[in-house]
């Protein structure tokens, strides 16, 4: 904890919470219909963040590789479930969950381990204060890329099945027949992070950097961390998207290069 950090009191949080309650009250008075969901979301924020705070405090106190890995695995499974839930047409069976999860595991975990062991180099390398937030940011962004791109791929293949089969019927290999759909899918998975990099610092101050500055880190030190994180997120999202799109496209065709939309639910 840096010396400049001003710890927040319960009163500080209470006042901010009262403002949210006031907003909900106004919404109720004006019949805007969002007061209820506003309050529920506010309560969820408090409960969920307190819980994760407790988990992190405990984890920091027991900084063994075993516990850090367990936490990482839980985060990965939750992200995998989220990817599956966002699919309009998901793969049937284990593939529905396994495809996105495998892609995220391959990219996020390897990028996180690389960043910890080779770049940031905390002591030990899995020190949870670094490992968990890093993995969280990587997984969160990779999850978006994977979810968007796989959804785009499967939906695109569904919409364009006649075109794809038309090309197959003319003797094109499956890779050529799915190429335009795959191009679209990869693009839609990568565009958000490319936009985020392009807008960073001008349109928006990235949340992590803002947090570090609030916590008393000198701005240039925070900026260096933010640049590193942006690059890592891009690499993680990129490789995750490429892996997911490749796996999903492969799964859409069988060993005789037939389009198998029956593998989607």
């Amino acid at each position, binding site marked *: 904890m840096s010396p400049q950090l001003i710890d927040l009191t319960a009163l500080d949080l209470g006042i901010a919470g009262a403002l949210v309650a006031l907003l909900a009250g106004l919404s109720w008075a004006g019949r805007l219909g969002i007061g209820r969901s506003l309050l529920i979301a506010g309560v969820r924020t408090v409960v969920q963040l307190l819980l994760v705070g407790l988990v992190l405090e405990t984890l920091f106190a027991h900084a063994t590789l075993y516990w850090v890995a367990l936490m990482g695995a839980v985060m990965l499974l939750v992200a995998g479930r989220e990817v599956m839930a966002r699919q309009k047409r998901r793969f049937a069976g284990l593939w529905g969950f396994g495809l996105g999860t495998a892609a995220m595991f391959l990219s996020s975990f390897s990028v996180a381990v690389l960043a910890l062991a080779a770049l940031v180099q905390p002591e030990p390398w899995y020190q949870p204060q670094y490992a968990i937030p890093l993995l969280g940011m990587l997984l969160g962004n990779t999850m978006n890329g994977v979810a968007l791109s796989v959804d785009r791929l499967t939906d695109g293949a569904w919409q*364009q099945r*006649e*075109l794809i*089969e*038309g*090309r*197959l*019927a*003319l*003797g*094109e*290999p*499956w890779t050529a027949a799915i190429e*335009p759909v795959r191009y679209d899918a990869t693009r839609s998975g990568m565009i958000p992070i490319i936009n985020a990099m392009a807008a960073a610092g001008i349109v928006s101050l990235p949340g992590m950097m803002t947090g570090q500055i609030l916590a008393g880190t000198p701005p240039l030190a925070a900026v260096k961390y933010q640049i590193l994180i942006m690059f890592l997120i891009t690499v993680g999202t990129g490789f995750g998207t490429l892996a997911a799109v490749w796996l999903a496209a492969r799964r859409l065709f*069988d*060993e*005789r*290069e*037939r*389009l198998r939309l029956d593998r989607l639910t």
Partner: protein
Amino acid sequence: MTAAPRLSIRGLRCAVARWPALDLAAGACAALAGPSGSGKSRLLRAIADLDPSEGELRLDGEARSAFAAHRWRRLVVYLPADSAWWAERVGDHLPAVEPQTLAALGFAEDVVGWSVQRLSSGERSRLALARAVALGPKALLLDEPTANLDAATTAAVEGVVEERRAAGLAAVWVTHDPAQAERLGAQRYALRDGVAEAAEALA
């Protein structure tokens, strides 16, 4: 010793229909008839290996399983009733089409610059045929290619396939028109209760 047939089928079975036996020599033609929805298109798709199927298929004596799937489909081309056009211009879909084929189907050479959007359905099916034969297939599976064409254009389509048959192409036509099967000099098959059997006359 006789040469192996260009296309031979034994015990073909897809999800909805069967074709127990067919032998087509080079240049020969089979006509398949049957009520709509009986699975004629599905049988053609199964022959082209676009749908999963069982059975033994051979091209010039070589088993289908010995071909990479896309290689098989390049040699045994399925021409669906509704053709697929994925690019902007006609020419993007037919890289090496011969001018005389286009002329026989009533198109000038500048058709390659036409926008796909502006094609009529009749133009689409004729151009789909030009595109399919441009691949130089050994067998062509035609799914009612003349269903929405007038008599003159039907004759043009038949003429283009005839010409290719003279060069050894084997053809399987799905057609409802007994006169067409007659003109083609086709072996006749009828799909009844999910089984394609040799028929004396088309129902």
